[in-house]
């Protein structure tokens, strides 16, 4: 078993894995108990598994654990809590921008990444920024309102 050390939500962690190709998603969910990122497709098609790698959105379902060694990973849990949500999370809560909520992780994390690069995007930029994230419940309009709430702030 090989060890992999990285920053996780601001803390140093070391995990071992029998397979260096094991996707980060499984390490986060099963080894580290962080369930924010979800398995949706395992194919980099839906965005449910999104985390930030050095501040940029990546799909943890296709990111081998070895690739994050010595980098900084942020998950949904690292942004905030129900009591102290991050501004994006607070906006999603205020807009009630979830139905089943299975896509919400990806939506919040992709938004975080987008706003890291473009703090005040237009509605069209937000739509393009989230184009790779799927929502089956049809919560799109609320998610857009939530993101625009932060974008305008």
């Amino acid at each position: 078993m090989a060890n992999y050390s990285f920053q996780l939500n601001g803390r140093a962690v070391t995990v071992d894995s029998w397979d260096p190709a094991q996707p980060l998603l499984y390490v986060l969910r099963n080894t580290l108990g962080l369930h924010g990122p979800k398995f949706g497709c395992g194919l980099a098609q839906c965005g449910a598994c999104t985390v930030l790698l050095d501040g940029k959105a990546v799909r943890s379902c296709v990111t081998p654990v070895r690739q994050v060694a010595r980098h900084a990973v942020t998950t949904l849990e690292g942004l905030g809590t129900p009591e102290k949500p991050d501004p994006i999370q607070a906006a999603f809560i205020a807009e009630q921008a979830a139905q089943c909520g299975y896509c919400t992780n990806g939506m919040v994390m992709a938004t975080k990444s987008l706003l890291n690069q473009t703090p005040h995007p237009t509605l069209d930029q937000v739509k393009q920024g989230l184009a790779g994230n799927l929502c089956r419940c049809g919560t799109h309009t609320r998610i857009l309102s939530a993101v625009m709430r932060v974008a305008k702030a």
Partner: protein
Amino acid sequence: MATIASISRRDLLQKGSGLIVSFALGGAFARPVAAQTGVAADVGKPLDPRQVDSFLMFHSDGSMTIYTSKVDVGTGLRIAVRQMAAEELGMPVERIAFVEGDTALTPDHGGTGGSTGIPRGGVEIRQAAATARQALLELASNRLGRPASELTLVNGEARPTAGGPGVGIGALIGGRRLSLAVDRQAPLRDPRSYAVVGKPLPRPDVPGKCTGQHVYLQDFSVAGMLHGRVIRPPALGASLQSVDESSIRAIPDVRVVRIGNFLAVVAPDEWAAVRAARELKATWSEWQGLPRSNDMERQLRAAAIAREETLVDRGDPARAMPSAAKQLSATYCWPFQSHGSLGPSCAIADVRADGATVWSASQGSHGLRSVLARTFGIPQEKLRVIYMDGAGSYGTNGTDDVAADALLISKTVGRPVRVQWMRADEHGWDPKGPPQLLDLRAGIDFEGRILAWETQMWLPVAVPGTRPLVAADAAGITQPRGQNAGQISQNADPPYAAANLRVVTHWLKEVPLRLSNLRAPGKIANVFAVESFTDEIASAAGVDALAFRVRGLSDPRALDVLKRAAEMIGWQARPSPNPQSVEGNRLAGRGLAYVRYKQAENYVAMAMEVAVDRATGEVRVERVTCAHDCGLVINPDSLRNQIEGNILQTLSRALHEEVKFDRSQVTSVDWASYPILRFPEAPKVEVALLDHPSLPPLGAGEASAAPVAAALANAIFDATGVRLRTVPFIAERVKAMLTRA
């Protein structure tokens, strides 16, 4: 009481104990914590849906728990039902805990489907609460020495209406049972006095969902649990010929499970199970028993008929037709569609010698229990099914099947087993929404009124018995071979005045893929046909689409929604197509559609503005307005969320979705081959709720899906003069039609 094989961590963390309950006021909702006895104290509570105690338990600290078989699959039921009970009991909503879909704890008052969560589930709980209210007022009357008629329930206590000290509900009854039958006559609070019902209270699960704290079924685990993955055959009817276990020797701690054609792997590590399932070498027999998925119309028309059914028979359309000033006919076709849940289905099963527990996101825990018990020979009272949230399911997706997978593997390996399907499992193997074919014919008189109307439909017949489970089939376990896609023949008649009307269903014996209920079963396609055809008639008569509908309706609630949706979109009266649609390659148009859901429930009208790119055939929906009347509104914000979701999801179904298969298997097995709506396509959506506080509440999980495809097709016709009668309206299809026109 049944022996329950295992008591879950969830029992200890989330399930109510009648004895020790903790809750925080302000913000956090009551979340009962069981006594540290190792056994949830509410196991053994009453379950008879005729009894108040089955639905409601009052705790001595002044909190209460609602128990219901109706589950919240992201729909807002969890807050709305609390509001309904809170209103009757004068109980703050935060003090109410909510236990859903647990066969050991919740009374069976039906699964969650057909938009029945509120109108049946919520209404039954409201009646139990109204019954409890009477009993609590009686108890308080003894305690306070005043007649019950002078008392009321407010803020968790019974107190004199005129003021003065009261007594808490917890002190009156907490920890004890009421032992009362639900009184169908127990008076309900006057809607004019509603303080909680009708308020847009936030849903308690949203903060957890936005911060990664909400525990989904997919996130749940039990001690000693293994991860399983099932290897499906490359052809639906293939049989397993050989397995080469050495092909996965390098993957740690994997065990192969083989029962007939059922092939699975289990491992303590989920990634090991995923890789093993991917890499395990197996050979399967050839099988090519499916027809090709192209030309669904021809297939449905040629399929064997089980029986014919005349659903509506008024006047004599065949006699009236020849005297019509104009006759029209058209054929509409809807493909197989998938539930396409964003998270593949998941289940955990723990089968032990003395019973079994299954954790599932099924919309019907009790129904699933009886299917699994019968199929796997477990006495029903020894099988407990516990609901947990999964990804949105919109009907029966892969949940029942994955539960069977997990149960079969757990039974074989003697350990708790979690199975989550992979993306290709969900898209390929979930039971599908049915294909539908409709032939419509109408005759109009010289004023452009409908003189005669005929609908003929080709639909898969309901076969009694439950749907076969994939795992049981593979393992060679005998099981019923039922087929049922829900109430798919409703709304096939026009809601407009027509003296001569006939609706006939040709019920087809079978279709190539397994079926189940998919949101607003059948109605979306039927309304697509009926409301598109209505526009065809209006256009043939040279009449504005709104004016044509208004003329054919007399119900004021129908007229209200139509006028409202039209007003919101700024409807300009004129016949379609739009004479001034062109602006470069952009063709602009607007359309509308109306439905009285199931001809008996919600009134919904929807209008849309679209733009069609003449060069590419791409359709952009720019704006949608919807006027929605579901009687009493319980929670307007949750309701809007449902309506918006219905609109966006059904736009996706109409624009993009079609299950494809070859002669062996489903081939649309991921989001590239089964695309859905994306953010750049999201229109602006405006919803008006027409509240009727004095009427019963109707469900809202489906109705507003019904008119979407028709409003879209009507808007596209308005923009282009091209009538789309086959779903999905993919760019290539639209472009081909535009070229031909």
